[in-house]
């Protein structure tokens, strides 16, 4: 019997309408765990770099994490993987909610879509019965609306639905996949779903998921529950509220938005508004949120209530969590009332809450600066709010200028030309980032921004405090119950870290320390993404309930195979390197590993070079960011090595990139 996982994937050939249930190899689980790890393996094996994102041969994989469906609190992530139309690299966006456990209970670890359906369809998975059904009648419908219609027509109120809206159908490069209170938004994976002609995946499951050592496993789960309670009662002192507790940033609960509104940028990530947060605004926004919010809600098997049901007067109800609360508001220089209203439409259309408002603000900036003209925006309203609604509609319908903007700021700027490139200024690897512009380089964040292949800072940061406490005694107090560190040395790193003077940024933590810290932070995210754990209970917050010391026990008790800290770290490193390899094979190189140019005002080119050089070496990559043959061999990834040599990316026996290959693989 297979434990924790079901041992089956659902292979769906959309071109031929063929559906197969395929047994997986348990050996692969030991090597790559599940979720992101096994997704990466499939993508490496089956999607060579010649395959375009919108080719029928691109795969779109929905995977439950290895521990989803077991009693582990907060383990409910679906990891969606494909080649992104925006970055042309591997995209792996996660969504919480209820989909992944339901898929496991239906008897599958993954749904793998390939080919293209000639007509719009939806996939209905009801335990062993799986069918493609016509979706002509829901073409153009909103993502949330779609879920409601399908549940009704199937008479399956308990079915979980992951659907795209109009944006996905029209292949908008920042289209999301929506699933009730959660969404997989980054990287334009909704566009790939639309390209494949799939409106929704619907799943209902009523079968068992087994664990290998039940008593041990429950003990671990109980410990985690108790620790969550403890952490909820004991927030971390001396840090801002969203960093003090567990869960995703508690944006649906907090009223005080002084920090976000005065430190994050408004418009096209341009304008900082110090002094914005007045009593009057605080009062007005509090009233807006209190009136809109019906209830705080959780994902499957989680106490954290990070989401909320939002009902704005006259608009259909929808669900929201996290920072989308403010992205539209700040993009349009408006207020919370506007932000919550337009987010309703944006959610039904299915667009990413980070990219969409930035693309719209970018368009208005181009207009203001004469790079686009009024002719490009026929009949556009005069007010900012009206303009945002206008642009959102144009984009998701791909009408006029909207067709250009729908490809995101990078590609739109390239198409528009005439200096537009300077306005697509907040991207990493062509992907829009959080609207943040800061003064002095932070070496830890420099490495994370540069090398984080999820291309989203919140999906690599965490664990280690973002800044030192002013007083040493406070730092000492902090490390007292910091049992989460993989090694005692991290405590010393933190205790010695000063806000000012010799041991302060950017030269402290030292380059070597930064490598250790970033590696730890990244590793925990990669483990979460394979297990299906919410980062909000693990890799993102300080002192989380899940960490490198209890994870191996969880995995062993659940799956029955031996796992300790070393072998877990090795597995995580293996598929993390595989993700890199997939992107390297698609042309990504050192030149792509950089933060937006203006992210920090004060930069330190020499230090930055040293940071990257050292971190690459630490990771087992060569100077161009390519995993070396030696490190690939150590990870059991000789097949990657061979492929690299065959393609001229590496030269046999020599761990430097061959010049020809580097030139050929230049990304355009």
């Amino acid at each position, binding site marked *: 019997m297979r434990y924790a996982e079901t041992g089956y994937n659902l292979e769906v050939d959309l071109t031929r309408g063929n559906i197969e249930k395929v047994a997986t190899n348990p050996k692969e689980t030991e090597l790559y765990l599940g979720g992101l790890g096994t997704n990466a393996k499939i993508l490496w094996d089956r999607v060579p770099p010649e395959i375009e994102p919108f080719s029928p041969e691109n795969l779109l994989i929905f995977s439950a994490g290895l521990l989803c469906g*077991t*009693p582990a609190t907060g383990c409910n992530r679906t990891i969606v993987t494909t080649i992104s139309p925006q970055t042309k690299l591997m995209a792996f966006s996660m969504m919480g909610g209820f989909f992944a456990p339901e898929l496991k209970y239906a008897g599958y670890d993954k749904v793998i879509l390939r080919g293209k359906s000639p007509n719009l369809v939806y996939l209905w998975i009801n335990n062993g019965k799986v069918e493609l059904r016509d979706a002509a009648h829901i073409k153009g419908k909103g993502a949330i609306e779609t879920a409601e219609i399908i549940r009704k027509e199937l008479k399956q109120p308990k079915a979980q639905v992951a659907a795209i809206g109009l944006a996905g159908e029209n292949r908008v490069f920042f289209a999301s996949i929506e699933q009730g209170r959660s969404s997989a938004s980054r990287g334009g994976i909704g566009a790939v779903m639309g390209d494949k002609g799939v409106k929704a995946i619907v799943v209902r499951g009523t079968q*068992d*998921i087994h664990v290998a050592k*039940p008593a041990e496993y*429950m003990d671990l789960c109980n410990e985690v529950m108790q620790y969550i309670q403890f952490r909820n009662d004991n927030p971390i002192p001396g840090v801002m509220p969203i960093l003090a507790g567990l869960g995703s940033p508690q944006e649906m609960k907090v009223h005080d938005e002084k920090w976000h509104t005065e430190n994050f940028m408004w418009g096209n990530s341009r304008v900082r508004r110090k002094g914005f947060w007045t009593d009057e605004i605080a009062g007005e926004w509090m009233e807006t949120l209190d009136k809109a919010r019906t209830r705080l809600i*959780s994902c499957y098997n989680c106490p954290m*209530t990070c989401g909320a*049901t939002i009902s704005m007067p006259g608009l259909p109800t929808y669900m929201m969590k996290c920072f989308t609360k403010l992205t539209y508001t700040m993009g349009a220089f408006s207020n919370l009332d506007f932000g919550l209203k337009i987010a309703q439409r944006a959610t039904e259309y299915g667009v990413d809450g980070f990219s969409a408002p930035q693309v719209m603000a970018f368009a208005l900036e181009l207009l203001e600066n004469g790079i686009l003209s009024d002719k490009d925006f026929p009949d556009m309203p005069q007010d900012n709010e009206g303009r945002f609604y206008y642009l959102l509609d144009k984009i998701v319908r791909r009408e006029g200028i909207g067709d250009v903007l729908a490809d995101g700021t990078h590609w739109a700027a390239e198409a528009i030309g005439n200096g537009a490139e300077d306005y697509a200024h907040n991207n990493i690897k062509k992907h829009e980032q959080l609207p943040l512009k800061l003064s002095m380089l932070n070496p830890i964040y420099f490495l994370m921004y540069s090398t984080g292949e999820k291309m989203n800072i919140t999906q690599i940061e965490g664990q280690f405090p973002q800044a030192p406490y002013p007083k040493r005694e406070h730092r000492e107090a902090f490390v007292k119950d910091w049992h989460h560190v993989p090694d005692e040395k991290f405590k010393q790193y933190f205790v010695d870290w000063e806000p000012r003077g010799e041991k302060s940024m950017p030269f402290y933590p030292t380059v070597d320390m930064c490598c250790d810290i970033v590696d730890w932070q990244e590793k925990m995210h990669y483990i979460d993404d394979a297990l299906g754990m919410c980062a909000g209970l693990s890799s993102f917050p300080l002192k989380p309930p899940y960490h490198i010391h209890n994870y191996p026990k969880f995995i062993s008790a659940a799956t029955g195979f031996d796992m300790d800290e070393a072998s877990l770290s090795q597995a995580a490193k293996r598929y993390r390197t595989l993700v890199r390899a997939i992107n390297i094979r698609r042309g990504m190189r050192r030149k792509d590993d950089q933060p937006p140019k203006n992210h920090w005002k004060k930069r330190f080119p020499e230090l930055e070079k040293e940071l990257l050089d050292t971190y690459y070496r630490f990771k087992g990559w060569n100077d161009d960011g390519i995993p070396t043959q030696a490190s690939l061999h150590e990870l059991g990834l000789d097949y990657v090595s061979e492929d690299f040599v065959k393609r001229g990316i590496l030269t046999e026996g020599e761990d430097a990139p061959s010049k020809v290959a580097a030139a050929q693989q230049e990304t355009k």
Partner: protein
Amino acid sequence: MKGKKEKKTIKTIKIDVDKCNGCRACEMICSAFHAEPKYSSNNPARSRIRIIREPLRDLYVPVYAGEYAVAECAGRDKYTIDGKEYDECSFCRASCPSRDEFKEPDSGLPLKCDMCEGEEEPLCVKWCPHDALILQQREEEGEAQDPQDELENLEIGLEALADKYGMEKIKDAVARISKKV
């Protein structure tokens, strides 16, 4: 035996629907606890509590599995509370032929909440993170439990089997088993 008085502990689970966040931890843990061996598997469809959960209409109601019903009711109820309409039979605890609720997904056998017999506290209560479920206990003088009750439970189970498979098949099975013993 009838008529003899004794002290009984009455367990009540107080349900506060306003506090429910729809996480279904209660369903999850109930199914794990009742797995054989304990906690060896997980499947909310086998839970003895179910959450009526419709976020867009803000419906969140935990309902416990009660008695087995041989036949469906001819008269049904359908509630509207605070302007929110609930499906027919929403609050009914019965494992009844009219619906899939409170039945083992494979065999169709009825499920009934047993208050997690043997545990200090019902597990759904323990796992409910926001005190939507709270246990209250009180002592009461009542009729002594008739040993007959146990048999009655057995009969209910058999009846359900008979409804599903037909009396003849059950008789055959019983005959077969008795030969083995």
